[in-house]
């Protein structure tokens, strides 16, 4: 559109445009706030780490490296929610799409995929991973969507398990397919950004990625984890906005109609089968992208953390804690789960090590009946995240079935993005008057 020049309605046009921009900004105010919070996190983490309470913060806040996992597994959980939370069809084999994306990246890099050479740009690879997942989703969905309820969950699980067993035994993957495949630290990092323009790309990966020293001159250095965090975060943000756009489109309304009452949606005249299949394909696409991001960052894949039933369960847990059918909820849900796992981890940044370091020898060896404090820490704290997450999960299912974001929406009476700015505004106006 060309700029209107010296006509009488020029102010009106800019006004209208201004109003549009303002509305878009208002609609996305909460999104923007969340993005800013995520963007500031590595800096805040570094700064807090330098305060006197630094070691306490390091125990309770997830490290940036763990936050990268929150991003790509969060994307996987959101893609799971896209199909399961919005159409009501529980995709219990969702790990199939994630796994195929992850294996595609690693196998391409080790030159084991026909047509794709090891120097394929990573951005293209992400797209191919998504499309492979779409093809798989269409094939699986074409037969699975004849079923519903528990039977749909079981047939998708069946397909994923077939792939799981296959990948665990496929010699082509590596010498020991049960351990998966790895690219190793040799070779270039996968680049995220604009393909072909080096200045607009950064390499991701914990060992081989790019790093920048002291960017803002405030003593904050961006290591490989931070750079990967921003690069992967950007891709995840784009994916989220795309999925959110689809959910809010007429297509998304039909998905919700299918969840609420499929018979009626069909009676109204929608070809529900096609809608379900398309939604499944879209969901598969983003799960494939998430898998590709995971493989690009970690440079190693194993059946256990890709195709496994328990990996789908990660998404399920995240979706329940964050809010089923809220799209953004699963990301926060996984953030919660990852934080709990981080705190209870056996690694040096876990709380078990921290307690052993901080508590005095006499406290550790104190106790009753032959059980010391140190024993309690070893048995009930060190690496026991599953126990507590399981309990939290059961409590959520029983008492907070709508999850964190779903409950927040109920309280606010609508989408957080719509309601929160309004609430804040009315609160401030109320004070001013």
């Amino acid at each position, binding site marked *: 559109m060309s700029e209107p020049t010296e006509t009488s309605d020029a102010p009106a046009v800019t006004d209208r445009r201004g109003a549009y921009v303002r509305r878009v900004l208002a609609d996305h105010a909460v999104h923007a706030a969340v993005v800013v919070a995520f963007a500031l996190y590595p800096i805040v983490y570094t700064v807090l780490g330098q305060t006197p309470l630094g070691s306490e913060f390091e125990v309770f806040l997830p490290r940036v490296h763990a936050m990268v996992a929150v991003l790509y597994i969060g994307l996987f959980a959101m893609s799971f929610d896209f199909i399961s939370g919005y159409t*009501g069809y*529980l995709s219990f084999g969702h790990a199939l799409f994630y796994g195929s994306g992850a294996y595609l990246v690693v196998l391409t890099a080790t030159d084991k995929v026909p047509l794709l050479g090891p120097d394929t740009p990573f951005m293209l690879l992400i797209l191919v991973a998504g499309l492979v997942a779409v093809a798989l989703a269409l094939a699986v969905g074409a*037969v699975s969507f*004849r*079923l*519903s*309820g*528990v*039977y749909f*969950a*079981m*047939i998708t*699980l*069946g*397909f994923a*398990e*077939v792939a799981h*067993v*296959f990948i*665990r*035994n496929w010699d082509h993957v590596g010498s020991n397919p049960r351990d998966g495949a790895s690219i190793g630290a040799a070779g270039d990092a996968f680049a995220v950004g604009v393909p072909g323009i080096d200045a607009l790309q950064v390499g991701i990966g914990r060992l081989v990625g790019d790093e920048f020293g002291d960017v803002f001159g405030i003593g904050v250095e961006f290591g490989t984890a931070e750079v990967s965090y921003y690069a992967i975060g950007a891709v995840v943000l784009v994916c989220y906005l795309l999925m959110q756009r689809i959910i809010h489109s007429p297509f998304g309304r039909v998905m919700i109609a299918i969840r609420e009452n499929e018979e009626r949606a069909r009676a109204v005249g929608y070809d529900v089968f096609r809608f379900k299949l398309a939604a499944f394909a879209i969901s598969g696409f983003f799960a494939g992208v998430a898998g590709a991001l995971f493989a690009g960052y970690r440079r190693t894949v194993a059946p256990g953390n890709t195709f496994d*039933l*328990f990996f789908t*369960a990660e998404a*399920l847990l995240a979706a*329940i804690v964050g809010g089923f059918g809220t799209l953004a909820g699963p990301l926060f849900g996984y953030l919660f789960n990852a934080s709990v796992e981080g705190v209870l981890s056996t690694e040096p940044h876990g709380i078990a090590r921290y307690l052993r370091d901080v508590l005095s020898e006499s406290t550790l060896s104190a106790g009753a009946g032959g059980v010391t404090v140190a024993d309690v820490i070893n*048995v*009930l704290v060190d690496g*026991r995240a*599953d*126990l507590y*997450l*399981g*309990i939290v*999960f*059961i409590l959520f*299912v*029983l008492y907070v*079935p709508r999850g964190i974001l779903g409950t927040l929406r109920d309280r606010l009476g609508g989408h957080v993005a719509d309601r929160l700015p309004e609430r804040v505004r009315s609160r401030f106006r109320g004070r001013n008057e």
Partner: protein
Amino acid sequence: MTDAAVLSVVDVLVDLLEPTTLVRILLDALSKSALYVLIASGLSLIFGLMGVLNFAHGSLTMLGAYLGGAVMVALVSGSTSEPVQLLLFFVAIAATFAALTLLGGAVEMTLIRPIYDREPLFQILLTFGLVLVLDELARIAVELYGLQPRSDWQAALGTAPGFLSSRYTVAGVTTRGLYLFEVLIGALVVAAIWAFLTRTRYGLYIRSGSEDSEMTRALGIDVRRTFTVVFGLGSGLAGLAGVVLMWDPRFGASVPLSVETLLVAFVVVIIGGLGSFRGTVVAAGVVGLTDALMTWLFINHVDFAGLPEMVTFLVLVAVLIVRPQGLYGIAEVGGH
């Protein structure tokens, strides 16, 4: 290339039709089917009556394996005679069955009862949370005891009497005594469940509840209490299966046993069809036979270790595509 393929198929068939091969496969299929029916029957009862796909079923089997193992390891010493060992095994089965029936009943009353009126999804989710908690608790207990949670409990495996560990020749094929013993136990349990379902009052409630829960309630039967009883019995049966698996070198008591048996139970129950115990028994036979055939094929002809497991899941997928309601399920249930 295709000629070679045709030739190898002919080779495989010729090899397969060898009498000793057939007997070997059939024996293997029988023992596996017996185990699968043990693993799946509890889930079949629960799923059939209540429509709850109990994800914690495998964890209960795993707990059963450890509990049974604990009883055996505590009571059997080097000087225990073989008949006494066998007797103690039935004591272990009874104790484990009782303990897990109580646990299952308690779980139903406290956790599952509040969410019957919600979507079936939530029951899957809740029992999944139970898997995390039970598996982690088992891991804690096992580590405290000084065992490796991931590897089989050798001491429990060692409590099997000698006449079960030794090999016998049946129709020209050698097999472990234990495998024949498992067939016996499987047949006994199937007969017991059959009698329970058809000869007792509760069995009648369960059958009628599985067919039409509303009508059953309308006739004045306390379906809620029936649910508790069935969930308890189903859990007890899961535990019983665990005790049997504890002696089997192909399984053994370990924490990963929980997922292993859960997937088997799902496959068998879904193939058999919702609410049909007959279906579960037939499906266990089908899956056992598939497994035995594919294991033989893998050992002799096909170099792919995942073959039995993969084909089992393919059978699940194929059955769901061709007969969504399962082999003996009621047609309308499969659709929704």
